[in-house]
């Protein structure tokens, strides 16, 4: 095992020439070779591409060119981000073998910062799920206990970082798909403000909720990755027209005087150990001079309903393009309509079909007002609740997940109980706010627990300031 465990240290060492990008890559590939078969973090390990990229970084260093802030950092990409010429499957049969003819903006940006892409990680099909059990290509197991799930939908990306297969990875978060697996795998996971990171080239699940963000071993790495991938992109109409985030300066700032929100009407049902870790995180911040303030989010309890109407509605439209005409799977039939029906029936898994059905229903004539229309209004209520809460608090803390990593198969037959895993993460996506999960001790079975730091729109600086403090004072043993 290398002593270079985080992205910032790797990049510094590669940039100053003390270590080569190729040798860093070799160490990571060796770890993949040793343990990937028991984790299944990847749909595809892109060895050759990684070697080419690493060699280019080394050539740049040798020639006196700075490869960038992520020089030689092995990074894994969730397999729902388009990579030119490299299969992008969304863990779905319907896209199996499809090679995008273009790169996602984040891919271009990270490559431009010197990153080395080691592979495409497993996910719940089209990012629909909370355990990475809905992948057409098999489950991703939790590196802390391979009988348990890695969380989801970005389970492969979380597991890849937790298992040391990559120094960092990218995920996408629609209702908690970065933060929940980060918590379950004991790594840092960030969902930035909606519009901060371009969605161009991210295969859409729910367009008004999706955001790309990083998984890293520590908070500083997350800041560096986010700095490299954020900033306005003219190819995404919902991209906020502002320069890249500047976050590293907040990491060492004192939390003294900050107002930390505690939700007094937080939905219950969390593991007692999870609640205990949350209480300890408040205590730690209070001990450092922050003020704990009570806030109310009375509409938060409706978040699950709003989310599970809005996200499937958008998804039903976003996934309609998988019709067997231009790319991906086709199941032949006598006429085009039968071909559509057969292709989509064969190409999508049960959870995806369920959500397409739910979303189609929620948008259909006669039901729009009762379901989708109403959900949009609930979304407003939740956003308004947050606006009031952030008048009193700079950030809010919650558990990331109510429970620690659960055994594989424990929830697959009960979609609703699976959906409940996202109860603390969903409201953030509805509001478009940033939130991140920081490892904070362990819970049942010694499994990692994550504390979630929530902040208002573009409040990433204070969010990272608090997260960095929590990281410094976290109980040992999680990593």
């Amino acid at each position, binding site marked *: 095992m290398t002593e270079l465990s985080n992205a910032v240290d790797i990049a510094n060492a590669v940039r100053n020439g003390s270590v080569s990008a190729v040798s860093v890559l070799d160490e990571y590939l060796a770890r993949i070779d040793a343990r990937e078969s028991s984790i299944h973090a990847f749909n595809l390990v892109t060895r050759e591409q990684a070697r080419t990229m690493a060699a280019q970084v080394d050539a740049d260093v040798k020639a006196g060119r700075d490869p960038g802030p992520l020089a030689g950092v092995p990074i894994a990409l969730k397999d729902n981000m388009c990579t030119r010429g490299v299969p992008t499957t969304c863990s779905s049969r319907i896209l199996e073998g499809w090679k995008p003819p273009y790169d996602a903006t984040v891919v271009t940006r990270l490559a431009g910062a010197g990153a080395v892409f080691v592979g495409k990680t497993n996910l719940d099909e089209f990012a629909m799920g909370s355990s990475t059990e809905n992948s057409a290509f098999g489950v991703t197991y939790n590196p802390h206990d391979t009988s348990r799930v890695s969380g989801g939908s970005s389970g492969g990306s979380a597991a890849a970082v937790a298992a040391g297969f990559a120094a960092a990875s990218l995920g996408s978060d629609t209702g908690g798909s970065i933060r929940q697996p980060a918590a379950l795998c004991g790594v840092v996971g960030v969902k930035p403000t909606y519009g901060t990171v371009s*969605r161009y*080239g991210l295969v859409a699940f729910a367009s008004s909720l999706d955001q790309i963000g990083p998984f890293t071993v520590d908070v500083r790495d997350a800041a560096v990755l986010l700095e490299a991938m954020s900033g306005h992109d003219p*190819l995404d109409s919902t991209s906020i027209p502002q320069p890249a985030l500047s976050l590293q300066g907040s990491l060492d700032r004192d939390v003294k005087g900050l107002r930390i929100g505690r939700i007094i009407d937080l939905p219950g049902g969390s593991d007692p150990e999870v609640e205990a870790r949350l209480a300890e995180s408040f205590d730690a911040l209070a001990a450092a001079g922050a003020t704990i303030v009570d806030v109310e989010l009375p509409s938060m309890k409706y978040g699950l309903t709003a989310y599970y109407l809005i996200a499937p509605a958008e998804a039903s439209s976003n996934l*309609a393009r998988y019709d067997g*005409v231009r790319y991906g799977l086709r199941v032949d039939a006598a006429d085009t309509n039968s071909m559509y029906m057969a292709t989509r029936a064969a190409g999508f898994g049960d959870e995806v079909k369920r959500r397409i059905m739910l979303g189609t229903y929620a948008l259909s*004539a006669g039901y*729009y007002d009762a379901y989708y229309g109403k959900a949009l209004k609930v979304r407003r209520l939740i956003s308004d609740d947050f606006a009031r809460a952030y008048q009193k608090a700079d950030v809010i803390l919650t558990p990331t997940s109510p429970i620690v990593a659960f055994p594989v198969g424990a929830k697959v037959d009960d979609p609703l109980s699976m959906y409940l895993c996202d109860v603390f993460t969903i409201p953030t996506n509805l509001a478009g706010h940033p939130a991140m999960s920081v490892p904070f001790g362990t819970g049942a079975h010694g499994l990692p627990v994550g504390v979630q730091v929530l902040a208002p729109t573009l409040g990433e600086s204070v969010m990272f300031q608090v997260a960095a403090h929590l990281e410094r004072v976290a109980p040992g043993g999680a990593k």
Partner: protein
Amino acid sequence: MIDGYELVVGLEVHVELATATKLFSASANRFGDDPNTHIDPVTLGLPGALPVLNRQAVEFAMRIGLALNCTVQACTFHRKNYFYPDMPKAYQISQYDVPLNVDGWLELPGGKRIGIERAHLEEDTGKSTHIGGTGGRIHGSDYSLIDFNRAGVPLVEIVGRPDIATPDEAKQYVTELRQILVAIGASDAKMEEGSMRCDANVSVRKPGAPLGTRCEIKNVNSVRSLGRAIEYEARRQIALIEGGEKVRQETRHWDETDGRTHTLRTKEDADDYRYFLEPDLVPLAPEAVWIDAVRAALPMLPRERRARLSSATGAPADGEAVMVVVERGQDDYVLAVASAGADASRALVHVKEAYAEQGAVPSVPAADLARMIVLETSGKLTSTQAKIVLAEIMANGGGDAEKIAAAKGFEAMDTSALEAMVDEVIAAQADAWAKYCAGEEKAMGALVGAIMKASKGKADGKAVTALLQSKRG
């Protein structure tokens, strides 16, 4: 009014905008190229692709709205969800409850105003070609091939109110709309190429009765077909009603070859489009300064040009001469001829009759036509001679009318006197004239000889021959 029934017609016209690129992506908006050579991730609906609105398309759409007296307003885009192989995303991005342009009107040349409900932006589909079966029809085909070059091309759909009462008004509406679109540069508006497409909602009723059930007629590919299709459809509906049957609300397909409309689908088949706000786009709210600038930059519209030409020439604004000359874009030229000193109404007549093959900028300098008209109106050239001289000027792309007239000998004698003389000889030698008119060229010799004799040699032989020829017609 047909057989005691009133027609109620509303037209929905789709026009492709003359942008360089597509509505939501940067591949080229070009007609007639090799299939699938103007494609990009957005056009093909590739996973991960995102739309970004084309500013020029918005500006063209605003021009259309303002030229049609609409209010331009803040608006949004929706997804219209339906499956069709030439619709790459399985949804069309269109405008639904809040379109860009609302509540305008178009004035027909005779002054009647047809209401415009809305004119909104949306994207075009790709093109399907049906292979096998009979005559490229969809039914009975073996398979279809899809070209996405047209997919994503910006369209404005102009929804007219049902204020049209005759097939002729419908034709006038589309003709006028076409001229407006071309004048403002928003579209080349060619029905034959499909850059302007027209659907007609047709119903009939007894005067004073409530609105009848309407049918939508699609696949009308020319102004002439539009009139025929509406006429046919109205008569079909009247026959149904007179026969005690009901008109079913349905979409019908105009068949140019048999001159009939055929059922395409009934209302029961109507899809559930599940419209919802397009989450990949943000609202469009053109600022007042932008709207004002677009309005200020609008060129003079055909209606105004006709009014201007009418007041300059005294010819009626909806008369054939003014209509034709403005449609050809030659009204500026007529006015230039007039300001060079010629009589405007004569200029209008000459341009209308002789300039059909000329463009908006005729090859003959306005001053040359003006000099010819001055000769004509001062009596130095007869109208017949004037035509001959003009033909010569046009053949040479310009020329001095006096010199041409002199070369033709039109000045050898007072032309009106010569013409009077010719008329006298024709009257006196009716036999020879009749033979000449019947095609006996020899008879001309007798006529010319008699005229030369009567003029005591003053008349120019060529001019006399020309006169006789022109009088024969």
